[in-house]
């Protein structure tokens, strides 16, 4: 049900852009105003969210330790999973952000209790989520970089190289980008497991289906533009460059309506981003269980709201409470009963 709501929402966006830019001829709004505004919302919203997190302190140093600590010299420390210095922690973060190391650990529980006598709970390797998540995110990155050919003039060599590698298989005309297929596979897998795994279906919200379907729609509309509609790329570059140089002009009439649909969906994603779970992009860098060294036995960590007024129940009060029996038991005292009396 939540998936259907999300699908309807995404389709509504497609229809809105088709009608707006196509039938109502509001190309200027859809080519410049909408993406421009969305981009500003994205940057400001993203920054505000990060600043919002930065306003809360990290009172305690609580890394989740995933390996052997630094202790005695002859015991090998697992420096990447249980870092005790800044560079080691940076390495842990790099691996986390670039290779999804925690997700790589993933296992799946298998419970067999039919054979009666010997119940087995097993944990089998489950790397599919890691693999497809990685494919999805890296495809997204490459696709975003590739699009820079439309935003930059002259096109830098780096972007040309990305473009070349991504189309190195030279299949079909226009040449198919591998990442176009991979992002469909990645997003498709992420969507399919949400729909087919009962546990995941149970926890999934509109907030989960909507961005996934939106990104799928963006990918599909982009592919439609390239492989089916064969849009006028040079006219589109003209419009996009107008946007990035703030020199707006009437969009050439040769541009297919699918361009406006694609841009509108991307704009929606940008504007939605800062207010959604997509902020995991910024949040992963700030997670206190990952970005801190496990070193609070070695170095002091300051809690800004530590309250020095909170004191333990004092020894004096304790001795006052138990002085007589302590005296009788022969335990050492600060004041013996006569002195205290």
């Amino acid at each position, binding site marked *: 049900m939540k998936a259907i709501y999300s699908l309807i929402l995404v389709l509504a966006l497609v229809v809105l852009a088709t009608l707006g830019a196509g039938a109502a001829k509001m190309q200027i709004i859809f080519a410049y105003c909408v993406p421009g505004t969305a981009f500003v919302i*994205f*940057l400001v919203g993203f920054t505000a969210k990060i600043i919002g997190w930065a*306003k809360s302190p990290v009172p305690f140093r609580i890394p989740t330790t995933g390996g052997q600590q630094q202790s005695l010299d002859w015991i090998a420390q697992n420096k990447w999973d249980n870092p005790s210095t800044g560079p080691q922690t940076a390495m842990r973060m790099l691996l986390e952000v670039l290779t999804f190391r925690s997700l790589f650990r993933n296992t799946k529980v298998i419970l067999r209790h039919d054979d009666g006598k010997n119940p087995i709970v097993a944990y089998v390797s489950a790397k599919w989520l890691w693999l497809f998540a990685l494919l999805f995110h890296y495809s997204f990155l490459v696709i975003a970089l590739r699009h820079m050919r439309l935003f930059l003039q*002259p096109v830098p060599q780096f972007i*040309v190289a990305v473009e070349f590698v991504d189309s190195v298989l030279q299949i079909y005309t226009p040449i198919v980008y591998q990442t176009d297929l991979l992002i469909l596979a990645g997003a498709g897998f992420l969507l399919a497991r949400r729909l087919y795994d009962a546990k995941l279906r149970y926890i999934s919200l509109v907030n989960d289906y909507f961005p996934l379907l939106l990104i799928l729609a963006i990918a599909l509309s982009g592919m439609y533009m390239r492989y089916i509609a064969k849009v006028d790329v040079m006219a589109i570059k003209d419009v996009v460059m*107008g946007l990035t140089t703030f020199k707006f*002009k009437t969009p050439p009439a040769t541009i297919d309506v699918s361009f406006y649909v694609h841009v509108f969906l991307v704009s929606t994603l940008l504007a939605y981003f800062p207010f959604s779970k997509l902020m995991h992009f910024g949040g992963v860098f700030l997670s206190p269980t990952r970005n801190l060294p496990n070193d609070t036995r070695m170095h002091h960590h300051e809690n800004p709201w530590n309250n020095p007024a909170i004191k333990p129940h004092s020894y004096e009060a304790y001795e006052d409470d138990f002085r007589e029996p302590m005296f009788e038991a022969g335990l050492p005292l600060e004041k013996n009963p006569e002195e205290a009396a």
Partner: protein
Amino acid sequence: MKLYNGGKIITGLVIFLGIFLAPLAYNVGKAAYTQPKLKMPENEKECIESKDFMRTKHMQLLNDWRDFALRDGTRFYVNSKGKQFEMSLQKTCMKCHTNKAEFCDKCHLDASVTPYCWDCHIQPEGLKK
């Protein structure tokens, strides 16, 4: 407003904003972009198909030509107006569009497209520039 670990977080934010604003910065001060002016043939006004068709679908046409000519042995193309052309990049296309640098490369550079025509075809010496 008090930020905690502000130095690191602001640095991160600056990098983030830097990356996302880089396209704008890259283009700052440059003249407004205009689509490249192509050097059109002087003695031929009409291409084998309409201008719009050629703009967006020439790659498909060339691809088909290659398949027909090299794989099926069909050497002639009849256009939408019934006129016949030899399927040949060099003999037909480049007869009019004599200058790769002034014609093909103009858009391909801007759109960062690297067609593999020239992996097999050798540019005629006279057309090199």
